[in-house]
């Protein structure tokens, strides 16, 4: 199998950068046309291509979406370092690009189930209230679904939003939501790349069952000071980047803040002019991304990046003799320090020190004046937090023309405070102080994988990850085999298959299905086992070179074991336990299994005057929990039979860009009452009955309750919506400006947000009857925003 000894091969290696900014470019294909030899630049822009010593000089192609391909003629007699600068393709007319187009082909890599959306496309797709959102664009891809209206949570192949490994510059982001999930925390201006993997996971990732969402921040322009910003209806944003030491070091700072609170203040004050009790609500969120880097030469590079974001919602109510302050706040902080080191032309290493923190708090203070002038108080403080510190080293090793190895190790220490509540004050019957002592646990991973070119038609990526978790009384070590392969059937047409096992040691308890910050992160314990999944996927990938289209069709089957859900009736504030002050979230959860299968179809064009995609998913998801739905199989809320997205971006001219999105999805599976009846619970000591007649007393111990039939047996009406956007771009003398006018829900479809059963009395017959009301959230919403770039 090993056809060449190492001495008979030569290596071309180096860094690939963007011309003009010096930004390192990941994912650039490097290949020798007509041979199976090829590689791609890693996250840090490094590539290493090892070839058998060629007889004659060869042509090496460097190619990536949105950049002009570079061609290098190489004699290949000895190892060589070659740094490449890629020119942006946007300056060129489309005709001249396609004239000598050599782009990266999906059909050539063994990786499957991977979605990439160029950030440039994200910025052109209509955004809700003008806010461009990476996660919402990913929801338009097959195999990825949204939850409720407007929410940015991702449901990947039947998995929940908790089963996504969301990483920003290698730091795990625990809550990706602003404003109860209506916006995600990721600011497109600061991002370089966004990739979502739904299956066939490479061995370097672990810790979540359903997907890996990897985002990398830009480093900042190394040549000159640049800026970008925007003013929208909800928020404004500003990004500044530039060199600190020319060619050596650069920085990037990007911030965003909402101003609903400031805009609303005068209206709220006006409305309450004559009211006795003044209510003052306020809400804002902000986020800040920052990154600096230093280039010590080709051997060493250092990066420091961070994210800081916070949502704060508050209500102050003041009346005569009473006052209430209530607040909710939540936010993430992440920081990553990375060191790249090159041990030679074939071995690249990155070591990262990672910090991540997510905190959610509620505070509530009530003060009331009593008859005697005494002041009575109620204070509630609630905290839920997860804090990680991690260390990670990854190696990329290119020993041989047919092998590319990647191996590494990772250790993370988690500190959990799932739920801590403190209740004090004279209005509190039973003061309560729940322990804030954090639960400590350590999660580790060790992996190796090989991308193996087997002959000219078969490429295999085989890997093994060992995952480790230890906490107080539990210790798990689980092997996770990973495998993916591509078999070339014809030119740019390949069959792919993959298998992946994943384990998840931290869990999210969520019972609203919305992206509320009240969702709690909890660890694996003696009673709560790690979640486990096995997924097989197979499909075809076809690149249509002439039209620039890519077609992928994939089928998958995923089995999930020990997934968690709240018990019926439990919620984050009503934990049940065996004794006062010993409230434990473990009593409120129950575990079960789930399985999901489906087919996905994606026809995508990433660049050109007319770009976009058609995505369709046909899928089934089932859950079975001994303690839910009486142990019977049921559809989870986001089981979705059909999911269709059409996304089109058309550059009418250099000055006008049009875009439109249409989505259709089967309605959510919900639990709705089908009947009501009166319970007669046992009252061993008698009790208070609503019926005065002692003969009827038993009927009065209970209450009217709902019969829901089977869990989630009601299907909501289908969801569909169209958004459009038009951008007017103009190059001014010193900067470029963009006016973006968009309409969300163009034809004003009343999509269901939730349903409620209400009683109505017929005015004629005076008889009461239940009616089902549909509550919708967003009608047609126009928005306008202004953006600039210099």
């Amino acid at each position: 199998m090993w056809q060449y000894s190492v001495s008979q091969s030569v290596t071309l290696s180096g860094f690939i950068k963007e011309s003009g900014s010096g930004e390192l470019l990941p994912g650039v294909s490097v290949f020798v046309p007509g041979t199976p030899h090829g590689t791609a630049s890693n996250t840090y822009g490094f590539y290493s291509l090892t070839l058998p010593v060629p007889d004659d000089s060869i042509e090496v192609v460097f190619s990536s979406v949105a950049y002009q391909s570079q061609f290098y003629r190489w004699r290949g007699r000895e190892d060589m370092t070659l740094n490449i600068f890629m020119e942006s393709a946007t300056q060129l007319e489309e005709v001249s690009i396609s004239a000598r187009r050599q782009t990266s082909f999906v059909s050539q890599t063994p990786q499957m189930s991977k979605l990439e959306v160029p950030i440039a496309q994200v910025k052109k797709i209509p955004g809700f209230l003008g806010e461009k959102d990476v996660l919402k664009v990913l929801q338009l891809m097959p195999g990825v679904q949204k939850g409720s209206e407007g929410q940015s949570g991702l449901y990947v192949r039947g998995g929940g939003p908790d089963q996504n490994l969301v990483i920003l510059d290698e730091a795990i982001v625990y809550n990706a939501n602003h404003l109860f999930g209506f916006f995600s925390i990721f600011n497109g201006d600061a991002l370089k790349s966004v990739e979502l993997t739904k299956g066939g996971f490479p061995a370097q990732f672990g810790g979540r069952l359903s997907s890996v969402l990897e985002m990398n921040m830009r480093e900042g322009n190394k040549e000159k000071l640049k800026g970008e910003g925007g003013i929208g209806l909800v928020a404004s944003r500003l990004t500044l980047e530039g060199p600190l030491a020319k060619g050596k070091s650069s920085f990037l700072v990007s911030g965003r803040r909402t101003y609903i609170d400031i805009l609303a203040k005068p209206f709220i004050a006006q409305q309450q002019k004559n009211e006795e009790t003044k209510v003052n609500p306020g809400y804002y969120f902000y986020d800040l991304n920052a990154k600096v880097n230093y280039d010590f030469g080709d051997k060493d590079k250092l990066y420091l990046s961070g994210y800081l974001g916070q949502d704060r919602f508050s209500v102050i109510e003041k009346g005569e003799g009473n006052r209430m302050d209530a607040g909710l706040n939540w936010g993430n902080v992440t920081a990553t320090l990375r060191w790249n080191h090159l041990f030679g032309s074939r071995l690249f290493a990155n070591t990262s020190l990672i910090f991540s923190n997510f905190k959610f708090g509620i505070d509530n203070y009530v003060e009331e004046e009593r008859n005697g002038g005494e002041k009575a108080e109620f204070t509630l403080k609630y905290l839920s937090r997860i804090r990680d510190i991690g260390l990670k080293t990854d190696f990329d090793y290119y020993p041989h023309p047919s092998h590319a190895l990647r191996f590494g190790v990772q250790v993370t220490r988690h500190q959990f405070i799932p739920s801590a509540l403190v209740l004090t004050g004279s209005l509190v019957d039973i003061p309560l102080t729940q322990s804030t002592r954090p639960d400590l646990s350590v999660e580790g991973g060790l992996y190796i994988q090989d991308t193996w070119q087997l002959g000219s038609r078969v490429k295999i990526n085989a890997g093994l990850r060992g995952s480790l978790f230890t906490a107080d009384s539990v210790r798990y070590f689980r092997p996770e085999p990973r495998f993916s392969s591509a078999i070339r059937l014809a030119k740019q047409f390949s069959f792919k298959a993959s298998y992946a096992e994943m384990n998840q040691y931290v869990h999210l308890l969520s019972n609203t299905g919305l992206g509320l910050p009240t969702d709690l992160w909890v660890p694996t314990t003696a009673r709560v086992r790690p979640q486990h999944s096995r997924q097989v996927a197979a499909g075809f990938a076809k690149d249509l070179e002439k039209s620039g289209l890519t077609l992928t069709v994939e089928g998958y089957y995923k089995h999930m074991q020990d997934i968690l859900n709240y018990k019926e009736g439990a919620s984050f504030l009503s934990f049940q336990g065996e004794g006062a002050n010993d409230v434990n979230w473990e009593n409120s959860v129950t575990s079960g299994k789930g399985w999901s299968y489906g087919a996905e179809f994606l026809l995508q064009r990433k660049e050109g005057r007319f770009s976009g995609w058609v995505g369709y998913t046909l899928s089934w998801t089932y859950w079975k929990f001994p303690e839910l739905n009486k142990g019977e199989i049921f559809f989870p809320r986001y089981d979705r039979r059909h999911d269709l997205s059409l996304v089109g971006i058309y550059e009418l001219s250099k000055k006008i860009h049009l875009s439109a999105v249409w989505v259709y999805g089967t309605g959510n599976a919900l639990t709705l009452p089908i009947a009501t009846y009166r319970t007669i619970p046992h009252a061993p000591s008698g009790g208070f009955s609503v019926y005065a007649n002692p003969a009827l007393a038993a009927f009065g111990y209970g209450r009217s309750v709902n019969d829901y039939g089977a869990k989630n047996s009601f299907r909501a009406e289908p969801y569909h919506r169209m958004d459009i956007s038009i951008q007017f771009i103009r190059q001014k003398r010193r900067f470029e400006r963009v006016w973006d006018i968009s309409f969300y829900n163009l034809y004003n479809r009343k999509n269901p947000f939730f349903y409620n059963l209400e009683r109505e009395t017929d005015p004629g017959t005076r008889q009461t009857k239940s009616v089902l009301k549909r509550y919708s959230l967003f009608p047609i919403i126009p928005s306008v925003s202004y953006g600039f770039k210099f």
Partner: protein
Amino acid sequence: MGLNSETVRFAVRAGSLLCFAGMMASCGPLVETVPEFALDSNEPKLVIHAYLSPHDTLVTVYVTQSSPVFVEDAHPGEPDIITNAVVVLADGAKEVVLPYDSTYLAYSVNAYEIGGIRPGVTYHLRVRDDKRSAEAKTTVPTVPPPIASYQLDTSYSSIGDFYGRKDTSLTVQFTWKDPPGPGNYYRVAGKALLLTDYREAGPDGKPVIKRGRATIPLQWDDAFGGSELQSDANSDGGAMHSPLGRISLKRPVFWTENGTESGHPVEVKGITLDLLHTDEYYYRYHQSVQAHDIADDNPFAEPVLLYSNVSGGLGIFASYNSFSIDIKP
């Protein structure tokens, strides 16, 4: 304890703000009545409630039916009692038919007609009327372990309520030892005999305040842990504790023509503590009823599907056995 109502108030605020945030452009009422389209077949179902105990002389079975939504309902929220059902109780050897008793609006029979309710015996219940039939079974648990110890205490809070009454209450907590082996379920109960002031209509129709005896159930403190219902799932063979039972000793307050008038302090004359050894059905049903009550006020909670062991219908057919002690404070 006010937490749930605070949560609700909070959620309402959050919702209204959310609405405001989302509807900068236009905030109309986005509520519409949905045509009756997608619900399952919607016939009323039989609802059965019955609890067997070796201590009861009368076996009582309540039979009602559910009221489907979308159907006009003459008495919303009231029990819809079925009077023409055939109700049969069987112990494997013998069957008895329970006649309908219009006084109690239930089907009942003296327990001796089936040889008494005996621990360890499985009883089958069948109910049918002209349209439907339902059935269920239960195995009566053994006598529970004795109450091993109890502790009485008095608690005060320093600040008065709206009427200036200091909150004073008598609390009681007890323990027992779970017998080895899984699958034991318990419920704690108790009542207090009080001497207290109460109001009654006098001969002239005007209210008069009198002092007399009253029996009231203990209030179990199961907010934040502790429960009236317990299982030995995590403490098999170990010591088990009741939650804190509470009797309020606040002086009663009466509204009179002259404003409010305070009564005399309450005196506790006696307390009865009960430990019920229940079957799993009893435990699961009552736990779901409690969860339902809590979730009903909580906008964040998932709906609770009430537990039922009745096939072909709704409700519960369960059994228990009990141990009681009387104590003097």
